[in-house]
C-alpha cells in the first residue's frame, strides 16, 4: 500500500535502530517519551518497537484514545438513549464494547435496543434520512481529528432540513489533558511523540506551548513504525543538541497551520464546555465540545431528558497514574487479573488503543 509499506521497511528500521542506539549511548541517560495517541501505542506494541529500542528509551502512554476517555456516566447515557422508544442509536464500532455501570451498547443491543455501527457520521445522517419516522442519534466521540466530520454532518443536516437526527456530543480537545498531565506532580516526561492526525486539523504550530511553557521537545509523528523510530531519533537529537522545539516528522500529511476550513467549521458548530469529565483524569476545564446553541435542535442533550448521572471511576483503577507516566500498566494492582480486555475496569483497558489493553494483548516476549 502506497505511503504505508515504504514506512514499514524492516531494513531501514534496523539501520534507524542502530543509529538510535548510538545516539542513546552518547546521551548516557534514560529518557521517557510520551506518545500522546493511542494509535502510536498500537503501532509500538503491534510492531514490538519498545523491545527493539535501547533500554534507556522508554515510552509513556498518553491520554489520546477517544474511546478510553469517555467516563462511565456518559456511556450510561448512551445506553439510556439507545433504549428510548423509536430511537436508532448509531455509533462507531469502537464504543460498542465499552462498559458503563449498566452494561455496554452491545449488551443493550442484545436486550433489544436498535444499535447500529457506522463507518462515518455521514452514514448516521443517511440512516436518519432513510428512517424519517424514527429518531436517529449519533454517538459522537473523538479528538480534533474526528470532530470536524461531526461538524460537517450537522451542517448538512441543517441544510437538508433533517428533523429526526441528533448527536450525543462527546468530542474532546487534546491540549487540556496534556496540560493537566504536565501540571501534575511527579511527571517523568522528557518529550512527546506528537499526535499526527490531530495535527492535520490543529496544525503542528499548535503545539508550540510545549517547548515554550514546559521546556520539552515534541515531534509531530506519523503512525508507521519508521515514523515512530525517526521521531525517537529526532527527540534524542533535540536532547543531544540542547534544543526544545516543535518538529514535524509527518510533513507529508501535517501542515504548520493545520486545516483552517475544518477549524472554522468546528467554531461554527461547537462551543467549548466549561468543563468535561475524563475517565481516569477527572474533570478538566474547557476540554470538551458541546453542540453550539445555533444547532441545539441537533443536540441529543437538549432533545432528550437524559439522566446525566455522574459515575465515579472504579476505586481499584490506577489509570490516572498510568496516564501520567508514574507507573507502567503491569504495575497497576488490578492489571491482567481483575481488569482484562474482556472485563475492563479502567479507561486504559477498554479500547485496543488503550495503554493497558495494548500491553495486555501484544505485551512481552522479546
Amino acid at each position, binding site marked *: 500500500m502506497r505511503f504505508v509499506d515504504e514506512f514499514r521497511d524492516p531494513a531501514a528500521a534496523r539501520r534507524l535502530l542502530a543509529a538510535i542506539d548510538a545516539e542513546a549511548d552518547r546521551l548516557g541517560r534514560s529518557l521517557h517519551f510520551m506518545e500522546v495517541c493511542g494509535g502510536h501505542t498500537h503501532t509500538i506494541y503491534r510492531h514490538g518497537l519498545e523491545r527493539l529500542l535501547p533500554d534507556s528509551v522508554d515510552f509513556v502512554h498518553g491520554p489520546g484514545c477517544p474511546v478510553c476517555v469517555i467516563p462511565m456516566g456518559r456511556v450510561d447515557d448512551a445506553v439510556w438513549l439507545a433504549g428510548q422508544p423509536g430511537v436508532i442509536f448509531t455509533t462507531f464500532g469502537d464504543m460498542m464494547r465499552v462498559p458503563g455501570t449498566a452494561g455496554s451498547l452491545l449488551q443493550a443491543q442484545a436486550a433489544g435496543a436498535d444499535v447500529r455501527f457506522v463507518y462515518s457520521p*455521514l452514514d448516521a445522517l443517511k440512516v436518519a434520512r432513510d428512517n424519517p419516522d424514527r429518531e436517529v442519534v449519533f454517538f459522537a466521540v*473523538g479528538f480534533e481529528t*474526528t470532530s470536524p*466530520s461531526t461538524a460537517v454532518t450537522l451542517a448538512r443536516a441543517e441544510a437538508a432540513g433533517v428533523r429526526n437526527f441528533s448527536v450525543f456530543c462527546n468530542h474532546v480537545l487534546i491540549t487540556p489533558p496534556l496540560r493537566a498531565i504536565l501540571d501534575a506532580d511527579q511527571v517523568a516526561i522528557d518529550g512527546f511523540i506528537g499526535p499526527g*492526525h490531530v495535527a492535520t486539523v490543529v496544525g503542528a504550530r499548535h503545539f508550540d506551548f510545549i517547548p515554550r511553557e514546559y521546556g520539552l521537545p515534541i515531534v509531530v509523528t506519523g503512525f508507521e513504525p519508521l515514523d515512530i523510530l525517526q521521531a525517537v531519533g529526532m527527540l534524542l537529537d533535540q536532547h543531544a543538541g540542547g534544543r526544545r522545539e516543535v518538529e514535524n516528522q509527518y*510533513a*507529508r500529511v501535517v501542515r504548520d497551520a493545520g486545516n483552517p476550513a475544518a477549524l472554522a467549521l468546528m467554531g461554527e458548530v461547537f462551543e467549548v464546555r466549561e468543563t468535561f469529565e475524563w475517565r481516569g483524569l477527572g474533570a478538566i476545564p474547557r476540554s470538551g465540545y458541546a453542540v453550539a446553541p445555533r444547532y441545539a435542535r441537533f443536540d441529543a442533550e437538549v432533545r432528550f431528558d437524559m439522566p446525566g448521572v455522574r459515575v465515579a471511576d472504579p476505586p481499584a483503577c490506577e489509570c490516572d497514574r498510568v496516564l501520567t507516566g508514574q507507573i507502567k500498566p503491569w504495575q497497576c494492582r488490578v492489571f491482567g487479573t481483575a481488569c482484562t480486555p474482556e472485563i475492563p475496569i479502567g479507561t486504559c483497558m477498554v479500547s485496543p488503543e488503550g495503554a493497558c489493553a495494548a500491553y495486555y494483548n501484544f505485551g512481552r516476549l522479546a
Partner: protein
Amino acid sequence: MCLGIPGEVIDIVDRSEHLATVAVNGVHRTISARLLAEDPVRVGDWVLVHVGFAMSKIDQREAELTLDQIRKLGKPYEEEMDAFMDTEIV
C-alpha cells in the same frame, strides 16, 4: 487514536456536495472532501481518510524527503547492519 489511511482520489462524484471516490488497495468508498474545500481534490490526489472524510492531501514530495532522511540517518550503520544480518540465525 484516529485511524487514518492513505487513499487515491479516483473520481469526483459531486463537486457541489464535495463527494469524491477514493481507492485503497482496490477498495472503493465515496467520501466527503468538504474539509479540503479551499484546495479542492482532483483525480490522482492522495488523501488521508478518516471516518469517511479526506483530512489532508498527502504531499508526495514531503513523503520522499522523509524517506530520504530516514535512509540518511541509518546510512553510517548500513555496513554494520548488513554484517549483523548475514550472521543472523533464523
